[in-house]
């Protein structure tokens, strides 16, 4: 079972109609501009923020958006890769 969690020190702010991720603490060292979250990304972010396992995440997404498991898994994979590139993700086996 693979668990994923957003690292400490990232706060989502709603500015006008956009959700952006603001780094605080040591994370500001890597701050190269805002990451904005669309609706789906925000949904995933909120699920991952407190820690979740990937299979549960995929289930949640299929229910929320009425999409296939395959599509959900693809979207999740792409989003997690983005978070990893930005060093925002902790992963636990």
């Amino acid at each position, binding site marked *: 079972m693979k668990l994923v969690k957003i690292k400490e020190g990232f706060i*989502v702010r709603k500015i006008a109609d956009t959700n952006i991720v603001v780094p605080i603490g*040591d994370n500001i060292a890597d701050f190269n501009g805002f990451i904005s979250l669309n609706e789906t990304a925000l949904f995933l972010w909120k699920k991952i923020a407190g820690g979740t396992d990937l299979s549960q995440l995929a289930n949640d997404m299929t229910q929320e958006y009425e999409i296939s498991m395959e599509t959900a898994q693809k979207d999740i994979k792409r989003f997690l890769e983005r978070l990893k590139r930005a060093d925002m993700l902790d992963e636990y086996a």
Partner: protein
Amino acid sequence: MDSIDMDRSPLNGTFELTARCNLQCKMCLIRIDEKRMQELGGRERTTKEWIHMAQEAEEAGTIGLLLTGGEPMLRSDFIGLYQEIVKMGFIITLYTNATLINKEIREILSKYPPHKIGVTVYGASQETYKRVTGNANAYLQMIEGLDFLRKLPSQLQVRTTIIKDNINDLDQIANLASGLYAEFSISRIVTKPVRGGIAKVEDCRLTPEQSVAMFHDRNRKEIVDPFYKFADENPDLMLTDIGTLESHACVAQEFEGMTVQKAHKRTLYGCEAGMTSYCITWDGKLIGCQMLGDCWTDPFTNTFKKAWNDFPNIMKHPEKPRECESCRTGCSACPATRLAETGRLDGFSEYLCRESKLSHVMEESLLSEIQQRIKREDR
């Protein structure tokens, strides 16, 4: 004024936590003392009040938040205040003179560094600090403070305000910034203090001629000479192809671009004050920017959102001074600087006018020199 059709959003806030300072700089725009506080009748807001205000600003959509003063670290509750505000998700800028960074402040800034820190440096020696701030020891305290701050992951900016007493230290202050890989910023103009500030600037500030000569020398050192050096070292390059250098040379064009942009957007003061930015003063007033005090709303009594929404309805749109109506020179004066100099948003200031005109001539002359060089080289 109808605020409904104005595109306003409180994106950038300034919290002026105090107007007190541990230094007594001759040219300070803001500083007041206890006596002046009593005369003005205001009170500094409490820790709880500021934290609550920060929460309201966060809910209203403020993203950039400047914590400043006076000297914000002079507040005995600075640590408690800072550690609550920093966790709310603002992009935090902290302005300080870096002389009061004790052990506890180091700990909190290490744990939660601001995204940007602006340190004002007043000179390059204890003697200059004594002349400018009244406190010779503050120089060494600043050096120690800067040495700590430079190790944080924050973007560092060294800021200075040049008057007659520290102009001879300018190059050394610039070198200090460059040694720290910090941005370096010189206050464009020294105006009289605002909102009851007690400094007396007329005797110590540079004349317009001296100020423009100083910026001319800086522009030559920072922009023009490096450009010529680059051109000399790369004789085969077509200089008109070099976008970066052209952007250095395009000061006048950038200014024109800004003027055109402003003409297309309705604003309150001709800038972002009260449109996408605001300041909340040490005594609890919401104003357009830290220099303005013509009118205010009361965010602590009426909530931040109401104070922000009501602001256009209580302010009087400033007119241009009559003397300026036919002038076509690009002018750096604004309602805020006019208010500081004359007591009126539409007041005419000989000082500001002379500085603007001389500055315009200086910039045009440097631009023309660069363009001539480009033409000669590329022939």
